[in-house]
């Protein structure tokens, strides 16, 4: 009955309580977003890496995927040795290069081009046509859309530019074999895929690869497979998805620091809002509380009622903040994903039920603690003095 009366008292001042709840909801939404942000990018990166069935990446020794122009030498031999490692089911070779597309007026546009292994490619999903063969290219969806390219059209490419003359070198025409949805492209990125042998020939790197993707047999641990490959082929660095996520985590340290700082601010603001509202409510009902104590209501029961007010404020604020936080996360994600150079499929905010529950539980706990402070003061003040003050 005491707890019920305390909760009813909380909503006696509807305007004030509503404003406080709005503030707590905004804080809870911010905390939720920072919780989702703290691990979101790494988790999303991990999902993206494994999305096409290749859980391992092999790169030139000590280099992260596409971190430099370094390549794996004797790539075909390395791929064969990797394929012989027990547990390996497929090895996909990729060679990155830059090509220039020449338009009708002779203007050159640089395009990131990947040489792919037709039998084991993981970089795009075919949306029209077929994988590129000899004399063919596959274009990304944004490029096909903006240039009005269709399967069977022709594009003129240059393999290099003469900087001093501003003139393209080695011009060739290619047939568009297909259109693809590139998994790791940033939003709107125009890019090409060609047969690996063609890229090698055009760039003069006959047996090289920028990276290799390795698929393991079902039930084989990625980490143990990476160790086995490293032992068998020490000339390359092999990373499991977990290790790459770890590397990503290190690079995103500033994101986590920012999320921690903003999340802490949200917690402090919540604590201040709850304790302010509960303190004002307790002060207003000081006489009622003193009377309850005088008639013999146990102090712990009165304290429980006041703490319940704090918990109720925090919990309702959380419930209101949850949809707000999810909406804000969606909006922020759209903005952040538009950053050039980041894969459009990456998400900055990941829903993790465990972490979100922990964050919301923290807010409820903060509410309880914030209620404890004024509650403790009210039930510990000398009763006789409290009654005298009320009578004056």
């Amino acid at each position: 009955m005491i707890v019920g009366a305390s909760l009813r008292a909380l909503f006696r001042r509807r305007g004030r309580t509503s404003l406080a709840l709005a503030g707590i909801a905004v804080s809870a939404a911010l905390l939720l977003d920072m919780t989702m942000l703290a691990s979101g990018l790494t988790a999303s990166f991990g999902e993206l890496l494994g999305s096409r069935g290749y859980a391992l990446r092999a790169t030139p020794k000590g280099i992260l995927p596409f971190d430099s122009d370094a390549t794996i030498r004797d790539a075909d031999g390395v791929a064969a040795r990797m394929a012989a490692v027990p547990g390996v089911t497929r090895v996909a070779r990729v060679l990155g290069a830059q090509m220039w597309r020449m338009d009708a007026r002779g203007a050159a546009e640089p395009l990131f081009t990947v040489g792919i292994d037709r039998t084991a490619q993981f970089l795009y999903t075919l949306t029209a046509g077929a994988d590129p063969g000899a004399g063919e290219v596959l274009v990304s969806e944004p490029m096909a859309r903006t240039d009005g390219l269709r399967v069977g059209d022709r594009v003129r490419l240059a393999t290099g530019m003469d900087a001093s003359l501003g003139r393209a070198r080695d011009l060739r025409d290619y047939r568009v074999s297909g259109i693809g949805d590139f998994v790791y492209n940033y939003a709107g990125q125009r890019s090409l895929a060609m047969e690996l042998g063609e890229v090698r020939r055009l760039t003069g790197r006959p047996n090289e690869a920028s990276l290799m993707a390795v698929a393991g047999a079902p039930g084989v641990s990625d980490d143990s497979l990476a160790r086995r490959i490293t032992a068998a082929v020490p000339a390359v660095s092999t990373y499991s998805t977990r290790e790459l996520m770890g590397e990503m985590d290190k690079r995103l340290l500033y994101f986590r620091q920012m999320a921690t700082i903003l999340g802490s601010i949200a917690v402090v603001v919540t604590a201040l809002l709850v304790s302010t509202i509960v303190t004002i409510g307790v002060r207003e009902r000081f006489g009622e509380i003193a009377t309850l104590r005088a008639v013999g209501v146990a102090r712990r029961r009165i304290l429980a009622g006041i703490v319940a007010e704090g918990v109720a404020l925090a919990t309702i604020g959380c419930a209101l903040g949850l949809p707000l936080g999810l909406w804000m996360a969606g909006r922020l994600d759209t903005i952040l994903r538009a950053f050039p150079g980041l894969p459009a499929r990456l998400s900055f905010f990941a829903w993790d039920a465990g972490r979100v529950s922990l964050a919301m539980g923290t807010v409820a706990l903060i509410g309880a603690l914030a209620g404890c402070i004024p509650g403790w003061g009210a039930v510990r003040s000398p009763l006789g003095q409290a009654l005298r003050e009320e009578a004056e």
Partner: protein
Amino acid sequence: MTRVIDARGVAKDYPYGGEAVHALRGVDLGVDAGEWISIVGPSGCGKSSLLNLLAGIDAPSSGTVELLGRPLHALREAERSRLRLREVGFVFQRFHLLAVLTAQENVELPMSEAGIGRAERRGRARELLEFVGLGHRVKHRPPHLSGGEQQRVAIARALANRPRVLFADEPTGELDRRTGEEILALFQRVNAEGTTMVMVTHDPGVAARAERTVEMADGLVVRDSGAKGGS
């Protein structure tokens, strides 16, 4: 007669600005079962301080107080609280009803704290509100009741756990004369049913309604109309 309150040599000091203010300076007072006494005196004479000590709300700086045979000065706060809940009723000048509860719920509250079941306490609350003349206002909240009606609800709340002693601190202080008279008539009925009454008032007219008057000045009892030698 059974003695329900026995105060001996009770003193109470309050710290104020680094010094002690002597609110009570050695009061002896005995109250027998079924008595109705008024404690009167000018403002600041110590009468409310004495009431708080007799009821176990405050602890004396020195001296002893026994309430219903229990030595209040030796009890812990939780024990005094239980004693107040089950054996004592309070009526205050400013009513202090819980504004968010109905009249009935306010009366039910001490019974709920004492562990009485819902059906029983609901029945008794209605009975008590009928007794104080508010049977038609059970669902009303305090802000919708007049001062006199609120004080009647407070009296019903004070009687909820069938207290053996009822303490009232300036119970008519916030009421007009006519309403005050009604409240005193109600006290008379409560006392007539066997409840011991201790009432503090600064109004001699109100004090005269009690069968015994204890007059205080400067923290001391200076006259006791019912003294039997000791006080």
